[in-house]
């Protein structure tokens, strides 16, 4: 029974979309039509048109250029924070479930403590202590975001641990690490893919909230979230300030979600294609 390739149709389109956005972000200094921070108040709220394809904001800055530069911040924070919190959550959850005992207690009680403080306040408090910077935004999102996934993975691992095939692997002499990595974790991946895909979107939005409050990137540096937030006040007169960054965030979320769903199905041999 041949399996279809992973990269085809929708997944190929999503991958291409993400790759294109990442490439645009990397090449922003060369492809951006204007300096993203160049103020031109005479043309504030300029409509989209030739020379300013996505319009201008309240200070007359070129939205396309700001989006391209902002992609560096938003994609960077979104992907690295989602990856970090997913890895951390999966690892800690698997350890808690598989090893058990005091390690389980330590990890899960830490998760409880983190979870019982409302996320935004916790992140704000940490950001105030650490100081505003992009690296800190990623660190704080990772440090507070792993708990939910750890809980899910731990529960999966606990139920898998008692399954016959795990006992069979142990009966054939596999080391505990091998049993965990080859037999238990691959069977507990479903919540991991979901966490990764939702994590990207969540991190991009969290970065924008922090930037809005002045704790993320500092003005005038652009991020998709900060463009969106500043455009909210003038939504009635300048729709392009919210629509285009919104579309960019939507495209990334959509692509990552579809890719995650495809990966989940692809790596589950029982799923019919």
């Amino acid at each position, binding site marked *: 029974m041949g399996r279809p390739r992973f990269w085809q149709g929708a997944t190929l389109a999503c991958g291409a979309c993400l790759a294109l956005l990442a490439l645009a972000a990397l090449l922003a200094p060369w492809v951006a039509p204007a300096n993203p921070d160049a103020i031109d108040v005479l043309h504030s709220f300029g409509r989209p048109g030739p020379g300013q394809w996505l319009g201008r904001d309240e200070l007359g800055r070129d939205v396309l250029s700001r989006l391209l530069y902002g992609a560096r911040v938003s994609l960077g924070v979104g992907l690295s924070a989602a990856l970090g919190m997913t890895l951390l959550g999966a690892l800690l959850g698997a350890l808690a479930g598989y090893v*058990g005992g005091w390690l389980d207690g330590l990890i899960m009680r830490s998760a409880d403590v983190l979870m019982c403080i409302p996320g935004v306040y916790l992140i704000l408090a940490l950001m105030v202590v650490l100081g505003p910077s992009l690296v800190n935004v990623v660190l704080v999102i990772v440090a507070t975001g792993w708990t939910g996934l750890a809980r899910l993975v731990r529960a999966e691992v606990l139920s898998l641990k008692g399954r016959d095939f795990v006992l*069979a*692997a142990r*009966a*054939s*002499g596999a080391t505990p690490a091998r049993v965990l990595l080859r037999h238990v974790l*691959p*069977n507990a991946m479903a919540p991991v893919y979901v966490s990764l895909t939702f994590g990207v979107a969540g991190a991009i939005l969290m970065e924008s909230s922090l930037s809005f409050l002045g704790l993320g990137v500092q003005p005038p540096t652009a991020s998709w979230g900060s463009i969106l937030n500043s455009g909210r006040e003038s939504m009635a007169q300048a729709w392009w300030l919210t629509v285009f960054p919104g579309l960019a965030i939507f495209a990334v979320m959509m692509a990552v979600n579809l890719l995650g769903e495809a990966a989940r199905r692809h*790596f589950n041999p029982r799923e019919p294609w």
Partner: protein
Amino acid sequence: MSLLEVAGLSVAFGAAPPVVDQVSFSLEAGQSLGLLGASGSGKSLTALAVMGLLPAGAAVTGGRLSFEGEDLLAMDPGARRLLRGGDMGLVFQEPFTALNPLMRVGDQISESLRLHQGLDAAAARRGAAEALERVGLDPGPERARQYPHQFSGGMRQRALLAMALAGRPRLLIADEPTTALDSTVQAQVLALLRRLQGELGFALLIISHDLAVIHALAPRALVMDHGAVAEQGDVAGLLNSPASAAARRLMRAYAALEGAAAERGNP
């Protein structure tokens, strides 16, 4: 010296009364021994104690276990682990859940080969194909690359046997190996076990609640009841003149089934 020597083995969950109580038996190289008993009589826990795979909370509280003269209970965990899948193999009750659903069947067999015989990937793949062929499964590359859900119950039980036998064990413990299978497949798997034992010469500890299964594979059997050995002797003797209450109960149940079958046969 016996291959496996179990003397006064007791297993308990915490401070609760033992669930395996002073069980003793020995098994010579290449021989077969049956372990007969109702559900919950401690058969499986005895097997798991021998393998060193007791579930969390259960522990050996007394007795001795020795394999080829070596004290299993004094062995360090690493050496004990290498015995599993090497000199000792285990086949389970449930062929439907004993294979990892996300791993190709061939990979699950070659995993143990690579671990115990230090084979590289290609040699392990060949070894896995051989192991599949030995248990009567098509050894072609297609079969080994399939996933467990593409196997029928009987095929899975064969694959599990291939997995347990890949390391050429000197002792194979088969815990209710045919209970979950329908009776035609059951007969095939029993015949296969007998043939493999003849070919490979492993000692077989066969665990079942079913007299017919024990009778088909082992000349000698232990009857277990509430964790203790109620009776032991040759299977023919057990069948004709069971001495203990537990053995008589099993025989009666067996006879009742046979009787019901006979009645249905005569309209």
